[in-house]
């Protein structure tokens, strides 16, 4: 046995106090007699002070309680042999919120879990891990069903997609090896290839649902030419961003139900309904619902969905941002007219961009330049196009093989390896290059970084090491130019649950994050871009700082989770950890609960004994 808090044994000092109290009580005791005559001799003698307390059963009961209390405070644990270890994976993904017959899958899962642990032996240790987000509810194992229940009661369904396998892996890592048994409480069906030691308790069932699965909130960076013409024709000014004009919100709705359903899609702003569309969506079908808004200024719009058979509520609401009928501003800073001409041709091909060759502009304008000094001074996101050669005349193009990192957004639409005619930049850049290479160029046996992407303090920088004057019509170069502009403008990024929020840059200090569920998170921010990862709730997040209030919307758009009619399995029967990374921690069985139970019994017994004992004695 070990004591985790041995200093608490100082509470054994209550025992001498108890003894003193008994002695004091004994000194003060009075005895009534009929006559003092037989005791006159005694009365003439000074009374003898008792030196020992009148110990009785009552005393020993009380002393035992004191000793037990001190012992319980010392947190005794018994280190014993390994007992049965069970890992419980509780699915907290969004689909668990689907309501069927009045109860959600998560409620049913909790009830099933509670019933499961209630029947387990007390020597069995239980770890509980949730799947969305992956969270270890019980860093130290629990044996008491009440404790386990309390831990589970503190958890709610999130608005995230979950991965049961990852939760199981994390659980195994916490345990330090594979558990004796794994029990998964989920709405997913048991996979066919689950191992014998894994038990699936599926609490789900087919529940019809209608969901918003897509929302076209990102206005394209480059508009089709005829769309721009029609937009220009319908608005009074096509150059001023933020002007009100007609807009259309396109909502993709999917009916996860065996029957067709009438669906109503409403768009509102500031709780005022602006437009409504009613459609009938066939069973299992997905439909794009276009909701025209006659007058739509820039801002955020609530999109809500309503259908008669709808099991899941989280996917019935989304927020879309409309930027108005404006265009993104780009500034081109250069002293080279050929550079300006080449880049200008590219920018002219995209009517969604409004560019100018000017040093002055708004702070958030995108900057395109061939001057590294200008790029380093700029506070806005910048595209630096410079091969570092500073040649007055571009070198003749030659074939350079591009090695493209297709996993980066800058590498979109490019082949992983493709030949490109371009002027090869010097292998050594004139200055330090910042960023991660996304495209390397191979020529003459050398590998040279051609495209680098960097992000710091919320500002993005793309360095494109080539001379646009040499090959202005090379398609890969044009593609990478527009990929860069799109990445710098963050044109294709929208936040959904599970993706981090990037806000800022903010000044150092306390930042208050007001979540959609009402919780407030205080963060001591060191300055720069605030990255908030806990986007497990859909809705508007308000970030309050010295800068003011910034609102960011996180939407739940996950057709896999919304599909409550045919839930798929995310269980991946990958091999578990084969060997423990460290010795498994010894099993510690806390004795405090037992001691407290004994104390409780003793307290009651002592009280009853005290009361009954006195009653037997004549008054």
């Amino acid at each position, binding site marked *: 046995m070990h004591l985790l808090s041995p200093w608490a044994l100082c*509470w054994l000092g*209550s025992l001498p106090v108890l003894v003193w109290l008994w002695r004091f*009580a004994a000194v*003060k*005791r*009075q005895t009534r007699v009929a006559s003092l005559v037989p005791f006159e001799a005694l009365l003439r003698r000074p009374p003898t002070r008792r030196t020992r307390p*009148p110990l*009785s059963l009552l005393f020993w009961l009380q002393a035992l309680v*004191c000793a037990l*209390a*001190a012992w*319980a*405070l010392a947190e005794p644990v018994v280190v014993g042999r390994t007992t049965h270890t069970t890992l419980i994976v509780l699915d907290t993904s969004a689909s668990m919120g689907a309501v069927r017959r009045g109860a959600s899958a998560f409620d049913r899962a909790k009830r099933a879990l509670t019933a499961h642990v209630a029947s387990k032996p007390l020597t069995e240790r239980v770890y509980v891990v949730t799947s969305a*987000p992956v969270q270890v509810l019980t860093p130290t194992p629990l044996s008491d069903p*009440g404790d386990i229940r309390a831990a589970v009661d503190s958890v709610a369904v999130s608005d995230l*997609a979950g*991965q049961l396998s990852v939760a199981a892996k*994390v659980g195994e890592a*916490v345990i330090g090896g594979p558990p004796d048994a794994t029990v998964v409480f989920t709405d997913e069906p048991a996979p066919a290839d689950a191992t014998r030691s894994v038990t699936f308790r599926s609490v789900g069932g087919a529940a019809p649902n209608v969901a918003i*699965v897509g929302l*076209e909130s*990102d206005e394209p960076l480059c508009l089709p030419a005829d769309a721009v013409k029609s937009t220009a024709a319908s608005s009074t000014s096509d150059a001023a961003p933020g002007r009100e004009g007609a807009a259309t919100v396109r909502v*993709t709705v*999917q009916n996860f139900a065996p029957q067709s359903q009438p669906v109503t899609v409403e768009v509102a702003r500031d709780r005022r309904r602006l437009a409504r569309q009613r459609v009938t969506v066939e069973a*299992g079908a*997905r439909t794009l619902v276009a909701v025209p808004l006659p007058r739509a200024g820039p801002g955020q719009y609530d999109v809500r969905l309503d259908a008669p058979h709808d099991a899941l509520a989280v996917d019935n609401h989304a927020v879309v941002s409309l930027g108005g009928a404006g265009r993104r501003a780009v500034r081109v800073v250069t002293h080279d007219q050929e550079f300006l001409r080449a880049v200008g041709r590219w920018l002219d091909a995209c009517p969604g961009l409004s560019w100018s060759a000017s040093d002055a502009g708004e702070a958030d304008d995108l900057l395109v330049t061939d001057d590294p000094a200008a790029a380093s001074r700029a506070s806005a996101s910048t595209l630096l196009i410079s091969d570092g050669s500073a040649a007055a005349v571009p070198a003749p193009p030659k074939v350079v093989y591009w090695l493209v*990192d*297709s*996993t*980066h957004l800058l590498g*979109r639409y490019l*082949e*992983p*390896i493709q*030949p490109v005619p371009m002027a090869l930049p010097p292998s050594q850049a004139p200055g330090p290059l910042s960023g991660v290479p996304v495209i390397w160029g*191979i020529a003459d*046996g050398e590998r040279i970084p051609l495209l680098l992407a960097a992000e710091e303090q919320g500002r993005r920088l793309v360095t494109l090491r080539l001379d646009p004057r040499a090959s202005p019509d090379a398609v890969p170069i044009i593609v990478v130019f527009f990929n860069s502009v799109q990445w710098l403008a963050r044109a294709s990024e929208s936040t*959904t649950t599970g*993706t981090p929020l990037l806000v800022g840059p903010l000044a150092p200090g306390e930042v208050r994050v007001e979540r959609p569920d009402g919780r407030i998170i205080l963060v001591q921010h060191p300055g720069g871009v605030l*990255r908030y990862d806990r986007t497990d709730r859909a809705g508007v997040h308000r970030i309050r700082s010295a800068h003011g209030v910034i609102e960011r919307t996180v939407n739940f758009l*996950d*057709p*896999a989770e919304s*599909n409550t009619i045919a839930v*798929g399995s995310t269980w991946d029967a*990958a091999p578990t950890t084969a*060997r*423990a*990374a*460290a010795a498994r921690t010894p099993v510690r069985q806390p004795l*405090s609960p037992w001691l*407290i139970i004994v104390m*409780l019994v003793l307290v*009651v017994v002592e*009280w009853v004994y*005290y*009361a*009954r004992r*006195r*009653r037997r004695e004549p008054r």
Partner: protein
Amino acid sequence: MTGSSILGLLLVWGLILAAGRNAPLTGWRRWAVLGLRLAGVTLLLASLKGYSTKRQEAQPVRVVYLVDQSASMAGARTEWAARRVASLEALRPSKVQRSLMVFGEEAVVPAALGAWQEPEQLLPAWRAAPIDRSGTNLERALFATLSSVPERAPLRVILLSDGRQTRGELERTIRSLAPLNVAVFPVLVPPPARRQGSAVNARGISWEQLSVPPVVKRGAAVPVTLVVRNDADRPQGCEVTISSAGVPLLQRSFTVPAGWRVVTLSVPALSVGTLPLAVEVRNASDPAPQRRLAYVEVEGPPRVLFVMAHPTALPPLAMALKRREMELAVRSPAELPTDLAGWLDYDAVVLDQVPKSSLTEPQVDALEQYVRRVGGGVVVVGMGGELGQELTHAAPLDRLLPVQFEPAGVEEAKRRVCMLLLIDRSASMMGPRIAATKRAAIELVNQLAPEDLVGMLAFDTVPYVVAEVQPARQVSAQLVEKLVHLKSVGGTDLYPALTAARDRLALSGATVKHAILLSDGLTPVNLPEYRALMQELQAQHISISTIGIGAAFINAELLQWLATGTGGTFYQMRSLDDLPTLVARDTQSALSRLPFAEGYFQPVRAGAATWMRDTNDWPVLKGYLASTAKPGASVELEFRDERRGPTAHPLLAHWLVGQGRVAVFTSDADRRWSPDWVRWPDFERAWGELLRMSMRPRASEELFVRVEPRGSGRELVLEGALEAPSVSLVSSEGRQLLPLALAQHGPFQWRAPVDHVADGWYRVLIDSRIQPDPASGSAVTANAIATRWVQIGSPRLERGELPPLPSDELLLRRLAETTHGAYDEPDRAFVPPTAWVERPWPVRNVALPLMLLLWLVEVALRGRTML
């Protein structure tokens, strides 16, 4: 508190109160002692329930050095890592607790670590650590660090590795680490530097990258591109073997100069479907090959079902489509399927000159399903069979056609020429003259187009039909035979022959009506009759050329009068050999009188036409089926004739039927009505384009499939001109099928999360799956519109851990960003040395001492009543 807890508390209280009635205390002591006892019991129960509060406490940060000790890190890299650890140890604040783990396939704490600030003392323990070094499993190693920390203290991991994992799927689990309070600070262990002048590195050639196109056409070459790096200072030999399904396709040896090189090899794509490629690279100085897998989808040309009434020789249209790289299957109407499944193999159906009545109701039903539900295309070219019947009787196919044919709706250009050869059979035609006449007749026919009309009459006193007026192509073969049987008899009367010729020429309706008379002219002449005949010939615009042929005397005056009066020519033949030449010359002369394109139909582009906009000049046609476009049909080409008023007849019309398209070309694509089209240089291009516009969409031409990062996860992105696509993933072994939930994020973009998908190669099936037909109750599954292969996760090398392997710096950077660590700044792991941690603080720690105090107070209040 739960109900049971409240119940338990009340029960205990009840016991206390019930027993307390007999307590030997009175007054305020009694109530005080009772209250203290109840409070004590309550505190005990609260302690038993395990209630707790959260308390922030500063805890020393724990740092774990996680050192990659897989085989690829042997030698100089391990020494570098040891020096790095030692240098970091010199910076570490004393408050920061640290430990060290080494990993390969799994992670362990090495035993007997020496002084941490002495690299030489670290290395032996690392090298002796009992780990499997044949793989690098970053995922398992990072999870192992969790279990190395007894409490859920904030953990910072300084990871020294090249990032190149060969096992595990860190990308999938990476975002699970941040909520577990684990921050990773990766440090990229650099590859060993090239040494100048050194001997050839035993593993000098490293294979950095492999690329193949996602899709190629059958028969094309598949470019396989490799990026290799030669670390030595001199060229090295290298051998590449490309095989498919165990069969070597290509083996090539080449020399790689020092530095980086891109090598492209080609293998043929011979059959449609997936072409798995296994690429092996052998270094001359390294016997073990490096091996990687790649997949290419080989697509065939569009398949067209070509339906002909009598499939014999392929007509010009079919030949043109074959030359436009379309695969044709030729069938007769009777062979057409009656269920949908039979049509699914085809991207389009062409009904070429097929009688619409030859398609039965079940066939048309199946065809309609093919168009409506699958998006198949149907092109109807002309009409076969008995046009009178076909145009006046309804047929099941009518409901699919975008035009309504008019009952008397054959518009045919007038015949160009009708030539008659009148041969005098009188006694003067004998011997060599017959032979000359035969040659002349042949010459005559050769001058004519196959559709020109020609006839031959012989006469003596009455006319005899040698060959009735008919198209030249039909008469030529018979003519010679019939002339052989021409016998010479006595007597000549020209008048009946001329009237017979007149009648036939008048009925032909040709633009040029001409007769060539071979006679000696020795015939009785009734002048009034001949004058009347002359007038009729002139009124009918019938011309007669005469060639005097006879043994001795000919009536040249009559012959000349006949020719001159009708606009013909009189020829005085000098010798029999001149006869064919004269006939040919006269025929040419008659043909020269034809007006250009008179009687032909000129197609023009309709006002709202959108197809084939780069074609402005269309060849003329000689005939078409008059029709009217139905409401909703789009007309691309039409005929306009002011004589008919503003209504135009469509030549090419089409409309959508469900997801597919039906087009009708109301002329033929053959020589009868479209000889100029057939001879037109753009004939193939135009028909190929027409088919492609009508056929089922082949989305593969412009289709992008890729895997993109999405926050900390990843998603499959599909871009293309698709309609409501659905996507499934099939594992490379073909065993696992994973449907993905696509959501539309733009006009041509769909996305689906693939976080739950294990790393590896997958075949992406892009499908327009047909819903079960409620009427029939049977489900029909269509073939996928397109197939692509994608690789999810990092490419896995088939070889293992032998260096040199390229580093995966991006993975390390992603790891740092996702876990709130820092890349290549390991000293930041020590700052700050403590961290505030929220810990549960049990209520018991207050409840029990309070209970104890209350206990003592109670005992004191009881006093001597306890004795």
